[in-house]
């Protein structure tokens, strides 16, 4: 009976561990679907912020990005970003093409210390990967050629994103140096932002945006779509940040929920206050960008901050948004959705904030944060710039002016996003 009790106790412990593993994994899968729906958030946000005539194009790009992102991450990206402990502290590693459940079903619980299964690891990370391209798609919207853009995305998500990601999350050299980026203010958002910046520099502004008489705004065609996008992104961000805990740890995941929500709310207020001060109007598009700024800002340190600190970080991110939007416009860098302000500028801010607020704050950490920002920024910007540059010199990256005027929906897709009331206007078909 003595033996029996021990056996029973062992059985119980294993059952308890399995239960914990299952609960953790459930959370990670929920986080995965939440990150997935961010792609709808990006799609509607970007669709809302472009003109009516370019809506099919932006939707098509968002659909293709997630498809390409998932497939290439399966083939190459995952094993480039997480090459395994052999490459710890390195600049580069690769564990081979494709995926293979390393130990088989029996070993599942050991894979990540009962945090999640191997497949969960892949799919959660895979959902993140495409995000960096989605960020670019918004900034270069309304004038980039479809096929070169898809080629860029393919290279960016397959090569550039996993390499810099490996530096930190794949236990590479920046990780060893002490750089901290909880859920990717730099590794995801700034990376996307640097790609966007390279793109808009090489593409030039949309026709008619910057005139000799000043800026001629090109308003987005649908504020409900844009607002929907922001709410969906915020919704998904609970998975983006909450899942980055990499387990369902009750205290930590819920703290991350609190900091994420409060930073977003403070971002809305910050942007509201500054943009009202600057423009004397209640600008919805700025408030929406402010929320996103707050979210990007808190992402690097969402697990390190208390609620009060999260509010400060988010509020400052929100304040940055209108200033940054105006600044990029001053430079004649045309970004229809504000992706550079939201993801690049607030991504940098959030990464720095880890050195300024929360449990890791300190001058030493701040320096390391700067180092990480610079290293990843230089690599990513150069990579994106070179790819875009080569595409520009070969196939060209910008649609002809007539196509831009007519809109990419008709020019590239032969199909408008909205069809009017009156079908009588249609002639008999040819085809």
């Amino acid at each position: 009976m003595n033996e029996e009790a021990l056996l029973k106790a062992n059985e119980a412990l294993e059952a308890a561990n399995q239960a914990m593993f299952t609960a953790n994994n459930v959370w990670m899968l929920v986080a995965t679907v939440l990150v997935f729906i961010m792609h709808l958030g990006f799609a509607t946000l970007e669709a809302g912020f472009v003109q009516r005539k370019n809506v099919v194009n932006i939707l098509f790009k968002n659909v293709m990005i997630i498809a390409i992102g998932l497939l290439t991450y399966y083939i190459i990206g995952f094993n480039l970003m997480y090459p395994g402990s052999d490459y710890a502290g390195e600049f580069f590693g690769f564990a081979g093409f494709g995926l293979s459940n390393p130990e088989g079903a029996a070993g599942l619980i050991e894979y990540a210390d009962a945090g999640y299964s191997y497949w969960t690891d892949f799919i959660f990370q895979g959902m993140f990967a495409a995000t960096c391209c989605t960020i670019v798609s918004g900034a270069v919207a309304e004038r980039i050629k479809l096929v070169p853009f898809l080629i860029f995305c393919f290279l960016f998500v397959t090569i550039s994103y996993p390499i810099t990601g490996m530096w930190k999350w794949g236990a590479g050299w920046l990780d060893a140096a002490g750089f901290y980026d909880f859920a990717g203010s730099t590794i995801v958002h700034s990376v996307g932002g640097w790609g966007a910046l390279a793109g808009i520099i090489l593409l030039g502004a949309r026709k008619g945006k910057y005139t000799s008489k000043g800026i001629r705004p090109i308003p987005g065609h649908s504020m409900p779509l844009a607002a929907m996008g922001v709410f969906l992104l915020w919704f998904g961000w609970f998975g983006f940040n909450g899942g980055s805990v990499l387990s369902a740890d009750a205290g930590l995941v819920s703290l991350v929920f609190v900091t994420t929500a409060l930073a977003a709310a403070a971002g809305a207020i910050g942007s509201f206050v500054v943009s009202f001060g600057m423009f004397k109007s209640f600008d919805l598009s700025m408030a929406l960008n402010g929320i996103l700024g707050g979210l990007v800002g808190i992402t690097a340190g969402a697990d390190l901050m208390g609620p009060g600190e999260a509010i400060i970080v988010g509020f400052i991110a929100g304040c940055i948004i209108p200033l940054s939007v105006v600044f990029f416009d001053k430079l004649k860098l045309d970004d229809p959705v504000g992706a550079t302000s939201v993801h690049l500028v607030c991504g940098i801010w959030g990464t720095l904030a880890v050195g300024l607020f929360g449990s890791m704050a300190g001058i030493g950490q701040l320096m390391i944060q700067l180092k990480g920002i610079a290293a990843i920024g230089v690599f990513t910007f150069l990579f994106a710039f070179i790819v875009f540059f080569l595409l520009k010199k070969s196939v060209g990256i910008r649609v002809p002016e007539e196509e831009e005027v007519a809109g990419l929906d008709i020019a590239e897709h032969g199909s408008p996003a909205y069809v009017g009331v009156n079908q009588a206007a249609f002639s008999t078909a040819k085809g």
Partner: protein
Amino acid sequence: MKKIEAIIRSSRFDEVKEALSENGINFFTFMEVKGYGHQKGETHTYRGAVYDVGYIARMKLEIMVSNDFVQPAIDAILASAKTGEVGDGKIAIVNLDEIVQIRTGLRNESAINTK
């Protein structure tokens, strides 16, 4: 027969319709148009840039009437569409060679349903 073309504020549409009706004119065609004139366009703000949309929204009414109805129609519109502010719009009178009612094939005076 004449065609009266009136460009009016959409906020006065109901009043104009009523005033015409009181003068026995229960028939017209209308559409939304954009106007460019004394009154400047609305000022919009988008992402920090203030701009003039370059037009104001107006309604255009086209009313075919027999000659007797021209003056009453003009008076009715003047009385009902006027606010006195810049931007009230214009009325123009165009001569018509002929009018045909599609349903009946009737022409001219008899084609106009002003009564």
